[in-house]
Structure formats: C-alpha cells, structure tokens
C-alpha cells in the first residue's frame, strides 16, 4: 500500500524532512507533488522514528511546507531496461527524453546494483585496440578495465574519449562495443559534440545516452552514473555485449555529493567532501569488469577534470586508488599542439601486463614498452638539464636521449583525431624511434627481440 503524506516540517537545500510517517524504508523512492501539481522524485536518506529525511533530485524550488504531498513508493530507484535502449536518449534519472525514446522494459532493475562477488570475477586480459599509440603501446586498455582520464579544464579530453569510443576494437574479432554514455553536469555543447560524433560515425545506433546537463538539477547527477551502469550491466551480462561506459564529468558528480553532505551537516573530510567519498566512488567504478562464464564485459572510462590540475585533489586522488590506472593529460603538451596530450610518465594502466605479449599483441610489446618509457624519462631529464645548463653541458649520449624525447613527442604521442593506428603500426613506430640508439643502450629489451626487430621494422 502506498502512503501519502501532506505537508513538510523543514526544507533545507536539496533536502526535505517529513514527519509523522510510518513504515518508511531507507533508500526508498519518494514522489513529491508540488502545490502546482508538478512532480519530483526523491530518495529517503535517513529514517528516524516517525521522521524521514528525503533528498530531492530535481531540487527543492517550488516546494512549500503546507501543501506539498509526499508519496513513499515502497521500493528503491529502479530503471526499466531493454535491448531497445540502444540508440535512445534519456535524462540523468533514466527517464526518456522524448516520446520516441520510450521502451517496453524487459526488466526493472535497482540502480544501486549489488557488488560483484570477487570469486565470480574473471580477470580482464583481452587487449582493446583503441588506435591511439599512447594507450595501445604504453597504457594498454583491456576489456573489463576501469581506466579514467584525468584532465583539466580546457584540455581535449572529450575528443580523446570520442576517439576511443569510435575506434575501439578487439584484435581479430569484428565485435563492436556498445557505448553507454553518462553525462553529468557538462554543457550542452560538450554533450552535442559526443552526439554529433556518434551520429557521424554511426555509433549512435549502438549507444545509450544519459544526459544530465549543466542546467539540469544538480542532485539528479547522483543517480546518473548508477542508471548508466545498471543499463550497461544489463546489456553486458544479460545480452552478452561488450559495453564501453564513458562517464563525464565525475568532478560534477562529486560536487553534487558534497552539496548533499553539507546540507545534512555531516562532518566533512578533505576539502569539504564527505568522508565516504571513496566508498561512494567505488560503488560506481567497481561495477566494471568481467564475470566468469559470461561473454559480455563492462569497460569503464570515467573522465574528470582536476581542479587546478592538482592530482592530489580528493577526486582524482580517490579515483586513482580505485581505478586500474589513469591516463593523465598534460597542459604543456597541449600547448605544444601535441595531441592527444597524454602525459606519459604519470599515466599508467595496471592491467596492461596481462593484456599484452605473444598471442595478444606481439612478443616484444612488454620489452619495447619498458624501453620507450625509460628512454623517454631519461630524455626528459636531459631536457631539464639542458634548460638549466645549456645543451652543450650534456654528454653525447644525453644529447641523443634529448633528440629521442623530442621525436617521440612529435611522432609517437602526436596523432590526429581521426588517425587510427593498428597495434602493429604503433609497435613498429616505437622500434623506428629507438633505432636512434646503439644496440647496447637498449638494456630493457631481451636479446632475441633486439635480434628480431632492431632496425628491421
């Protein structure tokens, strides 16, 4: 039986307090009817005796104390899912944007999902070719991985994400990814960029879009990544699809979370973010993965803009502790027009070791990657030294390293938005750049690989 209550006790920010309730459950969905008969959605944050604290997703504008009605629906937030969602557009709460986006749900699922049993997980080890050298060659992405892009305002993270969505394939298979796109608080233009790009390449027919734009209610963003991942789970584990989930911008999500925490007067953690930010983020990120005996997979690419490019800010920091690596974009490379401006040294893919090598990419991949990395790092050190002391102070070998680092940026990192390099091309390019060094300098490469590839490709 659904109970309806009239009148509220208190409205503060995005929260309302209802008194005299009974039988209300924690996390229950609430329908709020305003005096003008319009409706809003809410969620129970706390029940205490006969009081219920409700978070209103669409904001509390227009809600009054006397006449507002609340209806407790007896279940959590659900979303109706179906395979027909592909090609459709929803708002951040999972409601269809227009008449043509409506579907007949196959199932109704709780958006909070349930944690994957670690025992049931299958280790992600299938190489995804994104066609971007800095990812494929150096920070390899595998199916079922969660790999965020740490960016800053003004950097081309959207272009990069769109390129990944456009080009990703698994070697030797002609399977394409379904894309689930969750937008949180991004601008209309940014969202339109993705939609146009998906339309242009035909990806739109295998995409589901959840859009919460900058002028949509901020609190609704709390639900957006969860509805997106719930539909992704459905497509991946019920319909055996390989799903690429792009969530942008996680910074806006965290700010919405902070707003609620502040309204509840909770003890703040660092920079005012709630102490449970880590746990909350993990319930989003950890939904990526593969499951034993299931064909499908969820690969997650969250994008976040680091406030002041500060990697130690709580949002990137906690994200980095949960995700399996990170791709960091560099402002100085961007300034030099080296695009996509992936900052190689602090970027990392933790799962690359299982996804590369013989039978997956090529037997020399691991060695080559180590060598490129080490050589580039030394080249950057030489560059710094040259700035202070002048290039003439460098040893002859350091000069070679310096030249290598410059060539590496111009040829390997730099790549067009529509340039799709195969892994073969990426690896050979690496060898070509390394041929500047004498054989003895390539200490991280096994002899048999030097034999086979050095100055030969």
């Amino acid at each position: 039986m659904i109970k309806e209550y009239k009148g509220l006790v208190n409205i503060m920010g995005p929260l309302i307090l209802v008194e005299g309730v009974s039988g209300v459950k924690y996390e229950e969905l609430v329908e709020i009817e305003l005096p003008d008969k319009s409706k809003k959605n809410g969620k129970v944050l706390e029940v205490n005796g006969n009081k219920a604290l409700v978070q209103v997703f669409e904001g509390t504008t227009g809600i009054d104390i006397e006449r507002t009605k609340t209806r407790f629906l007896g279940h959590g937030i659900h979303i109706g899912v179906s395979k027909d969602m592909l090609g459709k557009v929803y708002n951040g709460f999972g409601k269809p944007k227009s008449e043509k986006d409506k579907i007949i749900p196959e199932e109704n699922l709780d958006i909070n999902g349930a944690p994957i049993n670690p025992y049931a997980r299958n280790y992600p080890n299938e190489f995804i070719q994104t066609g971007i050298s800095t990812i494929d060659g150096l920070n390899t992405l595998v199916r079922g991985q969660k790999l965020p892009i740490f960016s800053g305002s003004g950097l081309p993270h959207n272009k990069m994400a769109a390129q990944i969505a456009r080009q990703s394939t698994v070697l030797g298979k002609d399977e394409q990814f379904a894309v689930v796109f969750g937008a949180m608080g991004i601008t209309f233009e940014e969202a339109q960029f993705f939609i146009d790009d998906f339309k242009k390449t035909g990806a739109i027919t295998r995409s589901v879009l959840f859009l919460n734009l900058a002028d949509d209610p901020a609190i609704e963003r709390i639900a957006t990544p969860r509805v997106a991942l719930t539909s992704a789970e459905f497509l991946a584990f019920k319909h055996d699809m390989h799903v690429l989930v792009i969530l942008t911008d996680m910074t806006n999500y965290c700010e919405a979370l902070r707003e609620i925490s502040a309204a509840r007067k909770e003890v703040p953690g660092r920079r005012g973010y709630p102490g449970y930010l880590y746990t909350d983020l993990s319930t989003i990120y950890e939904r990526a993965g593969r499951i034993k005996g299931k064909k499908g997979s969820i690969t997650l690419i969250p994008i976040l803009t680091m406030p002041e490019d500060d990697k130690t800010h709580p949002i990137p920091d906690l994200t980095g502790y949960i995700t399996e690596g990170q791709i960091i974009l560099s402002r100085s490379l961007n300034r030099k027009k080296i695009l996509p401006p992936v900052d190689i040294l602090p970027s990392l893919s933790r799962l690359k070791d299982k996804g590369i090598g013989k039978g997956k990419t090529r037997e020399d991949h691991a060695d080559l990657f180590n060598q490129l990395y080490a050589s580039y790092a030394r080249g950057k050190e030489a560059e710094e030294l040259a700035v202070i002391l002048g290039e003439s102070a460098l040893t002859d070998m350091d000069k070679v390293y310096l030249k290598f680092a410059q060539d590496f940026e111009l040829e390997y990192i730099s790549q067009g938005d529509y340039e799709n390099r195969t892994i073969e091309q990426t690896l050979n390019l690496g060898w070509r750049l390394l041929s500047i060094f004498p054989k003895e300098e390539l200490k991280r490469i096994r002899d048999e690989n030097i034999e086979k590839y050095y100055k030969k490709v």
Partner: protein
Amino acid sequence: MEKKTGRIIKVAGPLVVANNMLGSKMYDVVFVSDMKLMGEIIELNEDTAYIQVYEETSGIGVGEPVYQTGYPLSVELGPGLIESIYDGTQRPLDKIYSQVGDFITRGIQTNALDRNKTWKFIPIVKKGDKVSEGDKLGYVQETSLIKHYIMVPPYLSGEVIDIKSGDFKVDDVVAVLKDKDNKNLEINMMQKWPVRKPRPYLEKLPPILPMFTGQRVIDMFFPISKGGTACVPGPFGSGKTVIQHQLSKWADAEVIVYIGCGERGNEMTDVLIEFPELVDPKSGEPLMKRTVLVANTSNMPVAAREASVYTGITIAEYFRDMGYSVALMADSTSRWAEAMREISGRLEEMPGEEGYPAYLAAKIASFYERAGRVKCLASEEREGALTVIGAVSPPGGDLSDPVVQATLRVVKVFWSLEAQLAYRRHFPAISWLNSYSLYIDNIKEYIIKNVSENYFELQNKSMRILEEEAELEEIVRLVGIDALSGNDRLILLVAKMIREDFLHQNAFHEIDTYSRIDKQYKMINVIQYFYTKGKEYLQKGINIVDIENMRVRDRVARMKYTPIENIENIESIKKEIDDEFDELLKKL
C-alpha cells in the same frame, strides 16, 4: 538461537538504531529485520543499541525487528581455512557464488567451514594423557603444505578419556577430556573465537629471526623479522599492491593470510587465479596451499570492511598457535580506518584529525600489537610468529596523514614508496633514503652466522654510496657532470649500478621475481668489488670515461637474471672485472 527482539527506530546508512535491546552486550552480533542482515552492537544507551550493519541497509525501515544472539562476532577456526576466500565476516565467497550467483545479495548465511567435508584425523595423544589448553591432540593434513593441528581450545584442560582416529567432519567429536571437576569435555575439530579479542599465548619473544622475502631492497637494506610489523605507505600507482603480492608469494612464512580490505575486486581475482599456479620455491607446491584470503572489496559493505582486518588477524593467530610462522598482509589499512571514520560519523561522535575518530591511533596500535614472535600456549615448548605488513594509502601520498602517522608510531619497518621512483619505472619504488628498519640489530647475529660475516659491512658501504649519490646529484644539477672528480663520477656510476642492477627488481620476470638471500649477497658483493677495483685503477691513471664504458657492466646488469642453480656464475664476474681492468691498464 535468537533470544530477544528489539525494534528499529532509526536507519542511517550502515548504522541502525534499535530500542528494547536490554540484555545485549557491547559487540554482540544481531540480525537486523526479517532479511536477517548481520550487524554488531557498537554503542548501548539504556535500552537503545547502535548497530553497525555488515550489509547494505536499503529497504530497512523503522519498526522492523532486531534479533539478538548474545554472541560476539566470532570466526570459525578449523580444517578448511586454507585455500578459502572469505568476506569480511568470514562468509565463504565461493559458497555465496554457488548459492546466489555472480552478485552478492543480502542476508545470506553460510558456515565458514564446510560441515559436510570429512578430514582424516590422526591422533597424537593417547588415552590417559593429561593435556592442557593449546596442547596438540592430533592433526589433519589440510593441504600438502599444512599440517593442521587440532589443539585443546584455550581455557580447557584435563585427562584424555577418549581419542578417535579416522575420517571426521569438523563438528564431530574427536576427543573427550575429563576436567578436574570430573566433567566430560567433548572436543571437535572446530573452535570459535571472538575476532576483537587477541588469542592468548604464554609470552612474547624478541624478534631475532629475519623473514626473508626474496625482494632485494627489503632483505638487504630494510629487512623485517619474523613476528615483526611493517607498513608500506605510498600514493596510488606506486606499487603497494604489487609489493604486498610479492611478499605473500615469496616471504619465508609457512602460512599467509591476505586481507584485501576495501581495495579492487580484480586484485583479489588476480590472487585467486595466480596463486594456484605459482610454486613455492622451497616445497615445489602451489602457493595457494598455504594461503587464506579475506576479501572485502571497496564496493562491499563498509562495516564488514571494518571487521575484515580482525577476521584476518584472528585466523592468523590461530595458525601461529600451532607453531607456524604466519605472515599477514593487510591491503589497505587506510580503507579500514575510513570505515571506522564513516561509522564514527554516523554515530555523531566528535571527530579528531581529518574527521577520523579520536580512538583511531589506539585501534591501529592494538591491531599491530597482535603481531609478534611468541611462546605458544601449550605445555610443550612451541614457538610461533605472526608478522603483520600493512599497506597505507594516504591521500595524495601525503605522509602527514593521520593513518600514516598513527601507524608509524607502532611499526618498526617503514618502506616508503615514492611516486618519483614509480614514474621512472623503478620498482619496487621503495625509497632507499627515507625508509628504515629497526630490526637490523635484532637479526644481526642470525645473518652473520647464516649468510655472511661481512653482510652488514657491504650493506653500510652500499647505503653510503647511495647517500653520496644524492648529494652529488645536487652538484651535477648546478654545474654539470664534467665538474666532478673521477672518484665522484665513480661513486655515481656505482650508485647507478646499485640502483639499476640490484635494487630494481622485476616482479613479472620469472627469475628476477624472487632472489634468494645468498644470491643477493653475491650480487652486492660483485658491485662492491667493482667499486674497490675502480678506485684502485683510477689511482693507476685510468680514465673514468673508460670505466663507464666497460663491457663487464653489461654482465653486472644481467646477473639478476641468473637462475638459482647457476649462482656460482655471479662469482665469476669478479674475474672478468679483473681482466678488463688489466686490459685497460695495458692500453694505457
């Protein structure tokens, strides 16, 4: 089992408040609502109890029942622990998987130890023997590596009036004792022990035995002892988890307990897939046969995360009591501290630093204090050790974080991970300048006797070179390398050899992943030999640039890949060093 029933009056996240709870004790387990969600009482106020619930509480409302059990949160200890994977409250994840499938749903109740499996019990005592608490009654060969001793539970003793032999289930009676009041005590193969209470032992012993790990930077420079404590703090991406995995693979311990506390699900999967395939260098058996896993990943309920470290350490103590050397890895204690913070926040306690509860340091200290080398509780002389290694994940890698600071106050070994080293792909990224070990004096005697007399001499010399390198690098940065004397450049060269050819260790290389202590000694010895010779020949007028370009350096660089059967080959590099220096001298 359930006695009285309380009634929920408030639900806020993992915290549930119920009244009508008189008769329950602090830290008693309760079951919340008819879904039977497990929880633990963490505060009592007249008849109101504050309960932290180990499962997701959505859908729970005011007025629902709370069932009391009267027991504190306990773990089941007995055959079947090894090779298991448990969640934070010791529910077996493989059983949950077979019951409910891929996702963990709520209110599942399973036994930690399989009640249907039979084990072959072989008695050690006979009828008429007098036994007291901790004494071995018999054993079960649990895996090829572990003899699981069935001991008299703490606080019991008496005369054996019946002892069985043969195949039994864990809850079958295998022995009957008559205690001093002539009461019969039936003993089965399973004990229950409350997790928050340390298991008793006779006395603590000084940590004088090293625990070798096969990791060169650790064994050579910052060693840990059996029964010691260590912490590994570092920012993300600096390789904490790889170090923890490496230690649980190669550490010289008989039983490993690995707690994945609030970390990634895929990391536990990695352990589950990899460990059964890896072979223990000593016994040739799969490493999984000595490992117990506790996995409460970050997306699993936060209160169970708080319990997981206690669950893990109680299991570890139980194996210690059998006389084993046990190593416990907790990855990561920061997530445990955050779980405490979250619960504390919901209780509306006055926060301490960074919102952590004021009792944070006390909880951390008492956790690490459960480590140690001990004389076990038994009438025979028996020694066990429990080594605890905790990872800490400070925000932004900032070591002033309260969890790091509270940990450093109690642990004796500090392996400081540095992002800068990780960026240069120097792994393990343990900083040689900031880390320390306070066990060196304790284990000196053992090492001098069993490894080599001049071990510590080499260690000191090498460390000195690394320190000098740090100073010289400052100068190079200001005036360039050409301004340095030949001797200084030799120091830079040798420091580079120590860093790249000794400290750098590839966890993913089949040979380099584990270095036996004698191999480590031989390697550092060769590098020091090169240094001594280098100094000598510089004096004789050889140019430093020629030394920098010596061919033998390549041999030194590759000595880490020498298989353990051929370690004598490392010794032969010395001869090559001699020869090449002579060659240089002749050219002069």
